C-alpha cells in the first residue's frame, strides 16, 4: 500500500468535480482496500462517499425500484419489497460474499469491483489488465476464467453476481459527472470488456459517480449460482433469468465472460414467451452456443446448461 490522503465531502453533488485518475471514490472499501493493499491501485487520495449525502434509500418508483448508490447488499437481501418484486437481485445479493462483507459492500461498488483473476490480484505478476503485458491465465490455471469471447486480451470473468441479475432485469444506473451533468446508462452498457486503451471493465470516466440504480419490477425472476464451496466464493457460473413486464425473457450469465453475458442463443431458442418444457430444453442446449472454453474450464459448459435449465424452470 502506498500512502494516500483521506477526504470527506459532505455534499455528494460536489464529489465528481474533485475526482481525477488519482483521486478515487471510496464506498464500502471491500474491493478497493484489497486493491490498495496489493498495490494494484496507488491513488493519491480517496474521497469517502459514505461521509457524503449520496443516496442510501430504497424507493418504490413507477414500474420498479430506485436504490441509492450506497445501499448495502445486506439491505437489499433483507428488503421484503425487493425480495418479492425483483427476486433475481435479492437472490444474487444473498449469494454474494459473506454476511460481514454484505453489511459493508454497496451496490454501486459491487458493479465497479475489479476481476478476481488470481494473476491480476497477485502482486508478483504484472499481467496485461494490471498494466503489464501478456495474459498468463490463457495458458495457465484458467479453471475460473471465461468461456465466451475468449479471443480478447483478457479472459477474466466479471466477478459480480448482482451485475448479471441487474442486466437481466434491464436495470440502469444514474451517473453524475464532474461538470454537474447527469445521465442514465443501462447496466448492460456500463460494463464492457477492457481494451488496450481502457484496461478496465466499465465505461465511466474518472469524474463519474454512480448515484443510483433503477431496477424494473420482475417478480418472475431468479438468480442461480454455482460455487466450489457452499458460501464465500465467487461464481463459477451464475445464471439470471427474468421475465419482464412485457413478457420478454432475458437470460444473463455470470462467471463466463469479461462482462455479464447475455445468453442470446438461448433467448432465441425460446422462440416466444411460452416457457414450455420443450422450449426450456432447447434454450438450455443453446446456452453454450458460441462458447470457446479454455483448457481447464470446459466443465463450465454443462454447468451453464444446467443452471439455464433450472433458472428457466423456476420462472416458468
Amino acid at each position, binding site marked *: 500500500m502506498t500512502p494516500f490522503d483521506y477526504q470527506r465531502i459532505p455534499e455528494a453533488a460536489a464529489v465528481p468535480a474533485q475526482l481525477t485518475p488519482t483521486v478515487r471514490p471510496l464506498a464500502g472499501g471491500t474491493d478497493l482496500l484489497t486493491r490498495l493493499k496489493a498495490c494494484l491501485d496507488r491513488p493519491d487520495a480517496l474521497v469517502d462517499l459514505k461521509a457524503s449525502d449520496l443516496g442510501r434509500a430504497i424507493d418504490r418508483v413507477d414500474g420498479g425500484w430506485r436504490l441509492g448508490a450506497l445501499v448495502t447488499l445486506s439491505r437489499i437481501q433483507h428488503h421484503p419489497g425487493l425480495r418479492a418484486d425483483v427476486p433475481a437481485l435479492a437472490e444474487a445479493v444473498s449469494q454474494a460474499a459473506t454476511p460481514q462483507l454484505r453489511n459493508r459492500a454497496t451496490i454501486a461498488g459491487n458493479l465497479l469491483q475489479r476481476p478476481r483473476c488470481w*494473476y491480476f490480484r497477485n502482486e508478483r*505478476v504484472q499481467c496485461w489488465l494490471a498494466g503489464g503485458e501478456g495474459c*498468463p491465465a490463457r495458458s*495457465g490455471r484458467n479453471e475460473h476464467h471465461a468461456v465466451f469471447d475468449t479471443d480478447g486480451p483478457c479472459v477474466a470473468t466479471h466477478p459480480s453476481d448482482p451485475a448479471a441479475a441487474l442486466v437481466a432485469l434491464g436495470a440502469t444506473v444514474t451517473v453524475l459527472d464532474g461538470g454537474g451533468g447527469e445521465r442514465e446508462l443501462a447496466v448492460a452498457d456500463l460494463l464492457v470488456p477492457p481494451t488496450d486503451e481502457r484496461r478496465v471493465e466499465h465505461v465511466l470516466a474518472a469524474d463519474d459517480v454512480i448515484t443510483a440504480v433503477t431496477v424494473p419490477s420482475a417478480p418472475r425472476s431468479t438468480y442461480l449460482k454455482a460455487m466450489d*464451496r457452499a*458460501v464465500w466464493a465467487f461464481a*463459477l457460473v451464475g445464471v439470471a433469468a427474468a421475465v419482464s413486464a412485457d413478457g420478454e425473457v432475458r437470460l444473463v450469465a455470470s462467471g463466463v465472460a469479461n462482462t455479464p453475458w447475455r445468453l442470446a442463443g438461448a433467448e432465441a431458442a425460446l422462440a416466444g414467451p411460452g416457457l414450455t418444457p420443450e422450449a426450456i430444453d432447447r434454450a438450455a442446449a443453446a446456452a453454450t452456443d458460441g462458447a470457446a472454453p479454455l483448457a481447464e474450464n470446459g466443465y463450465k459448459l454443462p454447468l451453464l446448461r*444446467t443452471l439455464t435449465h433450472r433458472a428457466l424452470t423456476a420462472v416458468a
Partner: protein
Amino acid sequence: MDESDLPTWPPGTDLETVGTGVPRREAPAKVTGGAVYSSDLRLPGQLYAAIARSPHPHARVRSIDTERARRQPGVVSVIAGEEGGEGVTWYEESVPLFGPVARFAGDEVAAVAATSLEAARDAVRALNVDYEVLAHVVGIDEAQRPEAPSIHGTPGNRTTDPKVEERGDVAAALAAAPIRIEHTYRTPTAVHNALETHGAVAWWQPDRLTIWASTQGVTQVAQMTAEALGLDQSQVRVITEHVGGGFGAKQVPWKDVAIAALLSRRTGRPVQCAYDRHGENVAAGKRGATRQRVRIGADTDGRLLAIDAELVGDSGAYQTAGEAAALWGPYQGLYRCDNVRTSVTYVYTNTGPAVAFRAPGYVEAAFALESAMDELAHRLGVDPIELRRRNHTGVDQQQAKPWSSPDSLPLIYDRISALAGWDARPRNAPPAPGGDGGVRRGWGFAASDWLAGKANPPGYASVELRTDGSAEVVTTVQDIGTGTRTVLAQVAAEELQLPVEEVRVTLGDTAAGPPSPTSSGSATTPTMAPAVRAAAADARHQLVAAAARQLDCAPGDVTLDHGKLVAANSGSRTVAEVLEGLSPAAVHGWGELVAVDDSVSVRTFGAAVAEVSVDTGTGEVRVTRMVSVPDCGRVLNPTLVASQIIGGVTQGIGFALTESQLVDAELGLPVNDSLEEYLVPTVLDICPIEAVPLDRPDTGANQLGVKGIGEPPMIPVAPAIANAVFDAIGIRFHELPLTRRRVLDALAEAASPDESEPA
C-alpha cells in the same frame, strides 16, 4: 514416580472426573478475546518484522540493495542475503537462512524490522533484489523427468533413495491372484492454513533469548533455535500460552523464529515476526501432493494376496524435520496380507517445503487403499465392511508383534455399522451415465489405522499441593488448542480426589522444568497424562505419609477420602490441616514417563461412514452425514474428544472436496495463496457429524489406557466420501479433490467415453 509403577486403570474402573466432559479451561478467555497469542504480544519497545520473499520459483540472488529500504521511516534494521543470516542454516539441507539461491516462490531473502508492521512491509517493497532467474520445475511427475532442472543436485530430484519395504513374494502373488485391481491415485497439495499464522516474538537480552512462539513444541523450538544460533539450550526460553492451530505445520520452528531472534540481537529490542496469509500459504509447510500406483491381488472371497504400492510424494524445495509422510503405513499394516511391497520416494520441486499435516502419509495413502478396497468389494459383490472383516489382522506384520488392541477394528466395524444403519442403507440402482440425472445419493465406508497415538517419552510433570488443599500441576508441555490443560487437570484431580476446579495447570514454558514432547503424532495426552497421574500419585503418597506421622500411625493405615485423610482408628484430618502441619515443608510430587512397553505395537484404528448427495447437473458433491468411530483408548474427556473428531472430519471434508494448492507451472507460483481462493470448508459445507469414540481403555498402551485422538479421525474421511460418490453416480475417482470441475468432467466423459474432454 514413574508412571509404570502406577496401578492400571482397567476397563470398568470407577472414575469420578476422568471420563466426564469438563469444559475446556481456556474457553472463557478465548471467547472473550482475553487469550493472548504470540501475535497479540506487545512488549515495550517491540519492533515488527516483515519478510522479503523471492517472487521466482528458482533464482540466484545476485545482490540486494537495501539502501532505500533503510531510509524508509520507521525502519530500524534490515538483514539481507547470506551475511544477513549470520551463518544460520535452515532445513535438513542446511541452506543459509537467506540463501544465495531461492528454490521456491516465497523463499526468504531478507527481512526488515520497523516500528510498525506497515512500515516494515513498505520497506520490504523498497528492497531492490537482483535475481538471476533459473529454470524451475513444479509437479512430481515433471520433477522426476531426466531433463528436469536439478534442485539440489540429486538424481531424479529425489531427496534420498526410495524407501522400499517388502515381505513375501509380491510379484508371484500378484501374478497368481485371480482378482487384480490396479490404479494410479493422486492426492493434492493441501495447506494447513491454521487461523493463527506462524509467528514469534523474540527478545535477545545479553545472556539469554526469550521466544514467545506459536508452536506445537516449546522444547523442540528451544533446542533447534539454540542449535541454529549457536547458543546453549539453557540460554533459550520458549513460551507458548495459546496456539491458534498447528495441524503439524508448527511441530518444527520456521524461519519466523530465527528472523525475530537475529533482528532482536541487532536491535536490542523485542521483535515480532508473524507470517502474513501469503507467507502462510507458500512458505509454512504443506501436505505434499502424491502419486500412488497401487496394485492389489485378492482371491475370489476378497482375501488380499498381494499389495504393491509405488508411492511418490512432493517434498517441496526442502526437507523439514518432524514426522515424515508415512505413505507406506496403511499398505503395510491395515490388513492381513503376506505379500506386501511399498516403495516411497520423495521428490524435490520448486515449491514450498512440505511438513507433517495431521496423520501425514496416512491420509493420502488411505484415499488410495480404501478406494481400492471399495472397488474390490464391488467387483466381488461383497459388502465393503464384510470385506474388511475378512482381511482383519490382530498383529503388526511389519514388526511381528500383536497390536496393543488387537480386536478394536472388528469392534469398530460392529459399532459403526449399527450407528450408521449401514445394513439398512438404501441400495442404489445403477445410475444412468452422465449429467443432469438430478441429485443422487450414496453411502461410503472406509477404515483407518495410524501408527502413532502412543506415548512419546520422556514426559515430566510435578504436582504441588497448596495449603488451601488445592493442587498445581506444572509441566513444560504446550496446549496447542486441543485441551491439554483440561485433561491434565482431570487426571490430577482424579488421583488426588479433588474437584477439578481445585487443580491449576501451568504449562507451555521451557523454564518450568525438563523437556516435554512436541505435540505431534497425537502423543501429548498419552505421554503427559500418565506423567501427571504419577506426579499426583507421588504427591498423594507424600501427603498420606505426612498424615500418618501427624496421626501417629502407619502410612498403610491412612486413606485419602475426598479432602480428608482418615486413619483406621486414630481419627482424621483434612488435607489443609495436614499441609498446615507440614509447613514450611511442602508436598511436591514428581511424575515421569520415560519408556514405553514395546512388546506390543500401539495403533489407533478408526472408521468412517459418509452419506453424500451428488448433483449430476452441477457436479456439486455435498456430504450430508458423517459417522466417525475412532479408537483412542480410554476417553478422558468426551467433549474434547468429540471436538477433535469433528475437527478432523471437517478437515477431511476439505481434503476430499475443496482443498488443493494450485501452482502455475510456467510461473512456478501458487495461484490460490489466500483464504479466498484456497477453499477450506465453511460451516455451511459441513454436515452433522456423529462422533462416537470406541472408548475402550487400551491398557497395552499405558496404565491409563489412553491413546491420542488429534490426527486419526481425518484419515478415513476422504475415501469414505469418494466411495459414497461412487455409490451415488457409479464413477470411481482416483484423484482429489472432488470439485465441480472434476465431477462434471467425469460425468461428461462417462456420457460420451470417446469424446475427449478438456484436460
